[in-house]
């Protein structure tokens, strides 16, 4: 079946199969590989995308249920072909090790900061508790989000 959705800011008609998840549609049908599959049961956060601005596990969303809605993946954060300032903060703070959890971390953090622009460190840790980093590099990830929130506040 054909589902119309807004994907990273562009309206798209996508051929979806009912038994596919959004994750499968993004990766296997559309070739959007910045979305990662980790656990397949909504626990790890690697497949996080924003659905109408809120974080969801794309492995727990049926593809046909996305019709008429807006999906943002990491690619949607690009600014004039360059990195988003939060991505730059991740680079600056060494918040990326293997990189597998990074897209989910970035999208979750941005959705959180939309609702809570000046969080303290504890709030950032709580906001990211559903995104697992198996390199266990959480400290630098929290550092990066904290620095981004602070610098943006002054900018």
């Amino acid at each position, binding site marked *: 079946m054909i589902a119309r959705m807004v994907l990273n800011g562009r309206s798209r008609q996508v051929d979806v199969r*009912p038994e596919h998840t959004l994750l499968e549609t993004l990766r296997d049908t559309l070739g959007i590989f910045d979305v990662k599959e980790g656990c397949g049961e909504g626990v790890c956060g690697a497949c996080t995308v924003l659905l109408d601005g*809120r974080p969801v*596990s794309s492995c*727990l969303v049926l593809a046909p*249920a996305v019709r008429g809605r807006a999906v943002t993946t990491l690619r949607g954060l690009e600014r004039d072909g360059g990195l988003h300032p939060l991505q730059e903060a991740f680079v600056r703070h060494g918040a990326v090790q293997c990189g597998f959890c990074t897209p989910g971390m970035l999208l979750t953090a941005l959705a959180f900061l939309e609702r809570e622009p000046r969080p303290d460190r504890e709030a950032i840790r709580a*906001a990211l*508790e*559903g995104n697992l980093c198996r390199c266990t590099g959480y400290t630098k990830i929290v550092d990066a989000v904290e620095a981004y929130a602070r610098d943006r506040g002054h900018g």
Partner: protein
Amino acid sequence: MQPFEYVAPETLPDALALLRAHGEEAKVLAGGQSLVPLLNYRLAKPHVVVDVNALPFGDIASDDGRLRLGALVRHHQLEESEVVRRRCPVLADAARCIGNVRVRTLGTVGGSLAHADPAAELPAVMTALDARLTVASARGDRHVDARDFFTGLLTTALAPDELLTAVDVPAVPAHGWAVEELSRRAGDFAVVAVVALLTVDGRGHVDDVRLAFAGVADRPVRARAAEDALRGHEPTSERLALAAAAARAALDPPSDAFVSAAYRGMVAGVLCRRALARAVTRALETR
């Protein structure tokens, strides 16, 4: 996933007709946060998935004595709603404990109740609140009290052709409240969770008191013995400890791969005492 037919009815009669036509072969999709994992693992193999997200059950309404939650109210709405925070704040606290932020984006009140995981927060909260559930079918509406709704592990009073459409909860703005839970990792289901609600009267005695557990049986459990031990008494720390001991004594919790029955019982007692202490503090603040 096994292939299935996907249908997304836009009216309640259409949805109910589909459920009636397909019976046990159909599964209702609301937030999908329990159903889609079951589909991914092929533990559920429905012939038809009935996506009910287009139905108009996504609102929180408030009148004099109660809140009416549509079955499609999302957990994040409970967390963020001003009227919930003012009139039934225990719902907001319980919602904050559910899964992770992505589960709370999509997961629904009705879905959590209909799935009936015995360790889930909302079934315990609804049991504590004496919520009343509205269930629709092609035969008409019926109402089921929360205490009669949960009938066993992942099992409810819902027939295959019925759809949960709304939940009525009493507004309890004067009650002190607390939700305490222990889980092994952030986002896990609770090992044990406790919901406490109580009021303290002008003489400083406990008046109305409601206590419910999740994670200690095949369904949510109301702690009547503990409530009786508190009602009419001054909520001293000794009295709260006595009530928590009464609650614990009435439980017969299960062991599982992670936690023994003895440990679960001990945790239930400790969390119960903490929840009561916090609820008493809050009740005294609002008095």
